[in-house]
């Protein structure tokens, strides 16, 4: 994959070169989606301290600080809640297609689905995980548009057959200048718009394991389109691309942190 990265950059530049309102070809669209995944992918491990805040109408705000651990190569993800005290030690562990949740209050694990609202917020597992859009979806071009002051390519993605995703249709608005994802909408099978997410800030960091930069959204703002007025904010406070412990993506490791 590493060797293909420059090719993606070339394809991406070619795709956006005219910057005009004419349609993008399928290969150009595929290149954009592949590049979105590729620039966020880290061949090694990944750890970030995240702040999650959920606002709901007539309800108390939910606020968490959690650590997200990823080992993309093995398809593993773990989220460990650190704050507030009542939630400390809770966590999620994803291995392949399995998502488990651990609650130290009761000392038990439970299977959860792709639609799990992480910590009861509007965020999903995929918001913290490696981006796999090219693998999970088929993309097509919709239009070139304006998003605020940015020129964006509007793409529509449909889930591939047999792939378990939270929502089967995605719409993306990608900055034509930088290739950054700025806006994403998730649509249910019925055609109903479920969530709109904005990615206003991106950061990049050199990854020694990848040998190039890894991009990650510094901030994600998710607006619930069903329960209007509900919104979730995710802020990546700290990121570390150093290697993690060899066998830490296990139930035992997560349990041990609160015992």
């Amino acid at each position, binding site marked *: 994959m590493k060797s293909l990265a420059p090719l993606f950059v070339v394809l991406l530049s070619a795709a956006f070169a005219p910057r005009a309102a004419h349609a993008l070809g399928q290969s150009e669209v595929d290149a954009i989606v592949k590049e979105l995944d590729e620039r966020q992918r880290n061949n090694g491990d990944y750890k970030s301290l995240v*702040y999650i805040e959920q606002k*709901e109408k007539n309800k*108390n705000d939910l606020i968490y600080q959690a650590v997200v651990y990823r080992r993309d190569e093995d398809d593993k993800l773990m989220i460990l809640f650190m704050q507030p005290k009542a939630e400390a030690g809770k966590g999620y562990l994803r291995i392949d297609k399995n998502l488990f949740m651990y609650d130290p*209050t009761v000392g*038990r694990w*439970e299977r959860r689905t792709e639609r799990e609202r992480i910590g*009861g917020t509007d965020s999903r597992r995929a918001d913290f995980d490696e981006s796999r859009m090219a693998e999970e979806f088929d993309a097509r071009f919709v239009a070139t548009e304006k998003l605020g002051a940015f020129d964006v390519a509007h793409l529509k993605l449909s889930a591939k057959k047999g792939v378990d995703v939270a929502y089967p249709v995605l719409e993306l608005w990608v900055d034509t200048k930088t290739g950054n994802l*700025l806006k994403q909408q998730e649509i249910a099978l019925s055609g109903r718009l479920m969530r709109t997410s904005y990615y206003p800030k991106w950061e990049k960091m050199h990854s020694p394991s990848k040998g190039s930069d890894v991009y990650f959204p510094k901030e994600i703002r998710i607006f619930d389109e069903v329960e209007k007025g509900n919104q979730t904010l995710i802020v990546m406070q700290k990121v570390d691309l150093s290697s993690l412990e060899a*066998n830490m993506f296990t139930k035992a490791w997560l349990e041990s942190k609160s015992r």
Partner: protein
Amino acid sequence: MNSLSYWAVLFVASVRNIFTHKLKSAVVGLLMCFGTGLVVTGTALLDSMEDSMSKSITSSLAGHLQVYSAEAKDELALFGGMMMGREDIGRIANFEDLERVAEQVENVRAIVPMGIDIASITGGNETDRVADTLRTAVAARDQAQIDLLRLQLSLMADALRSEFEAKQAITADKEALAADLQNLDRLQSDAFWLSLSDDPELAIQFIETKIAPMSSDGLIVYLRYVGTDLDEFTKNFERFEIVKGEAVPAGHRGFLFAEKFYEDHVKHKVARDLDRIHRQVHEEEKTIAEDALLRTKVGQMSRQYRRISFQLRPDDAQNLTSELRTMMPEVRAKDGAEPSLEVLLQAFLEVNDQNLDERYAYFYESIAPKIELYKIKVGDVMTIRAYTRSGYLKAVNTKVYGTFNFRGLERSDLAAAANLMDIVTFRDLYGLMSETRREELEQIREEVGAAEIDRQNAEDTLFGGSGQSLVAAPEDTAGFDEFRGQDLAGIREDLAEAYNQRFDAETVARGVALNAAVVLEDPDRLDETKAALQAAFDRSGQPMKVVDWQTASGIVGQFIIVIRLVLYVAIFIIFLVALVIINNTMVMATMERTTEIGTLRAMGAQRSTVMTMFLFETVVLGLLAGVAGALGGALFVTWLGHVGIPAGNQDTLIFLFGGPRMYPAFGLANLAVGLVSILVVSLVSTLYPARLATRIPPVVAMQAKD
């Protein structure tokens, strides 16, 4: 003629006319008799039903009155409303304040705090359960147990393989199927079990992530529960009784399942199905041979054999196989070979009218003790999860102390609609935010300092700048230590200690409740006490709403109103028809009596005399027929009161009847209502013919003579 003689003559004339015009009198009299009987029977049944339902509701969950916040968005519906148990009925911030006011009101015997919510109990499937046991066995270095579990997993793998191989020809995703089969091979390989000693966590993870998803879904039970002061509840709700286990000791957290709910939802699926089939055959006198629905149920049950085979220990499986082979020697595998346990179990569960009793007895005697008959047993600590008011899923562990019933309502689903839990645990699940927690969250928020964005202007706010790149280099956070200054284990320990502490009556009273049941000394003074209680809350400045049990019951409480409405509409229609028939009959009778009336008029009778005569005649007939009808109705109700009306297996009827049979009774009011209504109908229907009669001139009589 003095007044008495006048009425005496009218009475004699009426009786004479009634007997002279036998056919008319018979038709009209029968109608009146039937109408009165119907009113007496109908109103007596309804009153009895209302009385029974009142007892069902007041002595099980509602009390006589219910109190909840006047600021509630939804109506209180104790037995479920339109929001399926998630009604927003506001909250009582501190139950103690409410209790203080209520205790001052005369006729209030007790006030019990409550909080109704929906929760779920979940668990993995059979493979998850075995993987968990394996983890414990590995930690305890219990090799014998590990060997047993290896055998059990191997049997499971065999069953799954045969199912997958059968699917091979029809599946579209052959790659996924091949991968599953490969994983099953790996599970049964020696290499896998050797790896268990090298890296047990990774090996068990393989079972949990690759093997477990191949089996059916795990346990998921949604339940409705009432968090309450269990001591006060037990004391004040007379029908409450413990069936299994014991009551939750004072000051302890604990859970009690409604017995019917426990049997219908927590029991092993095959046992439940078998119970249902057995009940329908024996209590509802159905036969499997003749009842298509029952046959379908048997078919569905037999396909659940794996729920038994997956739970059996290998030695139990072996014994059961030989026992079943002896019991059913005719059963063979498809290729004619000795049948496997799964083939035998499937055949065993294919019950018919002849072998049902024998197999039912065998199941409970020989199979049930070897499987998990209840997913959650009395005495177990179970994990219960509910969405807090902030919308996140919260879980607590609570001990199941036992099951309970409301006497007489053992078979009612409605009475078993709610399980019981202590109110302190309810408050934990309700998730009300304490001041300390609010401050803690504010502190975390301040550290991040993220600005709030309005949805409407989000795009302008976030992307309205120069259109320059939004990518920045992060501050150097490499190697950050997330555990520095964090003692997750210590935090959990403190929380667990606080959770496990015993609580006193003051803790129960001091805190949030969603509603409260008020039990009265004298239920006949319900309206008066309701008004006094409402006034007391208004005076105290607590915005509370006081409602009677019927209103608080939600849709269930309205049943009786609907039934009463239907009866009244039916009576109205019957009376309308009667009115038309009586009217027509009387008009025809008037025509027949033209000469007689003309003669009377010629003899000097006034029009008012003719009118009075007609009406009087109807009243006499109405009284005779009405009394007969009322007596008939009363006798019928008395007979029903003696034999009882069975509710059958109709859940709603059991609840309405206050038990499996209702024994109705009538009162004087029912008789009076019957008589008065029939007299009114009769008089109204006679008005027109009587008026016609008054218009007959004397000359008509003379002409007729000519």
